[in-house]
């Protein structure tokens, strides 16, 4: 029997994974999109609270860091059988992976068996730092740098390292560009940005070394970028729409080259098929 396509979603805590998955479930249950469950997911209880919060027009609360459950959604999209897997619901294990450099064997299995990776990055969580090559001390002081910050690895190095670790366990070599395994870097809470840049322009300007790393390891047809607003905007602005149309109708995707907001969350999945 042919295996289902296995897509894993990975992101640090606070990158909107729970909101995305909850809204996706609501869209699937709404049956308006070309996406459905192949069979009822084994356990959706971990998303139950988040869905209830969205339905009552509230922001989804942060997932407790000790929640290590794996969410698996068995989906059918345009005839493709897809397992959408979020192995690290709380995002804490990602932090652990990068800080203590330890990886659970369950993760290794998921990586080995995966066909595509969707990485969630929230631009407003990234640190802006100023250095001697880009700003004078006067300019840096004007934007008030942290006074006594401890060393932290930069966001770009962290993101590159995350992909290096995933590639290592998937046994993808640097020598050969990756074609089969698809990568989608998704910039979440897209509505928090000013909207001037497209997702592609955003990564090229704000995370240029991360972009270069991806472009030199994946075939040009095997990686892409997108913007995602799983909440659809600030909760106060979308609350009324949530109540009238349902929360899932506000969530949208932005293609890597921009364009209209697309109110279909399954597009993230079809991009990596």
């Amino acid at each position, binding site marked *: 029997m042919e295996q289902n396509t296995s897509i894993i979603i990975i992101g640090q805590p606070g990158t909107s994974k729970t909101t995305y998955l909850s809204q996706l479930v609501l869209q699937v249950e709404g049956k308006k999109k070309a996406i459905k469950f192949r069979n009822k997911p084994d356990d959706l209880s971990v998303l139950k609270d988040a869905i209830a919060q969205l339905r009552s027009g509230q922001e989804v609360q942060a997932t407790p860091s000790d929640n290590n459950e794996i969410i698996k959604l068995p989906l059918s999209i345009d005839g493709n059988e897809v397992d959408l897997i979020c192995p690290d619901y709380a995002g804490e294990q990602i932090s652990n992976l990068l800080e203590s450099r*330890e990886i659970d*064997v*369950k993760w290794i299995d998921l990586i080995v068996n995966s066909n595509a990776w969707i990485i969630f990055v929230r631009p407003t969580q990234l640190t802006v730092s100023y250095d*001697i*090559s880009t700003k004078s001390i006067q300019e840096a002081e004007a934007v008030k740098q942290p006074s006594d910050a401890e060393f932290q690895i930069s966001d770009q190095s962290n993101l590159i390292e995350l992909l290096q670790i995933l590639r290592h366990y998937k046994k993808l070599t*640097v020598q050969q560009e990756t074609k089969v395994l698809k990568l989608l870097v998704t910039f979440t809470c897209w509505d928090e940005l000013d909207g001037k840049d497209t997702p592609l322009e955003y990564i090229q300007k704000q995370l240029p*070394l991360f972009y270069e790393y991806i472009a030199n390891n994946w075939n040009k047809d095997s990686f892409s970028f997108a913007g995602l607003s799983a909440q659809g905007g600030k909760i106060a602005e979308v609350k009324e729409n949530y109540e009238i149309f349902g929360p899932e109708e506000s969530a949208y995707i932005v293609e890597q080259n921009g364009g209209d907001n697309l109110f279909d969350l399954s597009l993230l999945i079809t991009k990596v098929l």
Partner: protein
Amino acid sequence: MDEIKGKCKNPNCQAHITGKCYEHKDSLDLCPNWTAKSATTKTKKRKSNTVFTIAWTGDAIAPDTLNIISQRSNPTIIASVGNVEAGKTSYFAMLYLLLLSGHKLEDYQFAGSLTLTAWDRLADKLRYNKGTVEFPAPTPSNPDYYHLLHLALKKGSKLHDIVLADASGEVFKLWADNKDDENAENARWIHKNASAFLLFIDCEALETKKAIARAEILDIASRLVEDLGKRPVAIVWSKADRISHVHDKLKEQIKERLKDIFQNSYSEFEVTNYPNIDPEELCHENNLKTLNWLLNHTTQPSNVVPELEITNKDDIFLNYR
């Protein structure tokens, strides 16, 4: 090597890997910057046999751990050579900062690194973290201190594993005076194994110490040329924002001597870490141009990199490619 549990406040210190104190204390426990870390949690996790440690640390590597790269390709080692505080380490710090901010090598593209944490620790010294820029502290002068940084670069589709090697100016001075000095082992290793060199000439030192600085530079250059073969040398006039303050005669004498010493296998570059405008040639362009030139003029990697014999090809931790 046993795992060393702990953390040093000094971001340049590699004691968590090497076990050697940056401040030269006999034991890490005697260093005020060192905090030993409890291993309780990790030990508990490992007992379950479900948690594995990732095969590389992200920190700088040493010759005995070079095998993590050499098992996939024979890396090209590029070494920085020069006197104390000539800007060798700051050059590397600026190199990574420039790459992070989107500046590029002309002919090579970034495809990864196994020492990202070490690169970032260096680059962090040139960030305005505490309202000022500290610059990297002088590299430790222990004869067994190695600080090797890795870049995976691609030219077209071909992979080039590059290892940039750093050692202290004090060690190079000892080596220049006596190539067999027992405290210059790392300088000898670098000289023997590197495929190309960055030789730093400190403009600020020439401005203030004049002929003394000139003699120190030429001593190192004369030692470097021994058994150099066809290995290229990039002469880096560092802190070049001060070069107009160096006496013309001193510059002229140095340039003439360098030509005598290195014949045609070298090129000169001026770099600074103090840009006045962006982009500025001395800072934003020449740093990367220097490395690009060296890479284009390096014929083949040295063959003496220690190889790790892999007996179990399925071992996920030995199988990094």
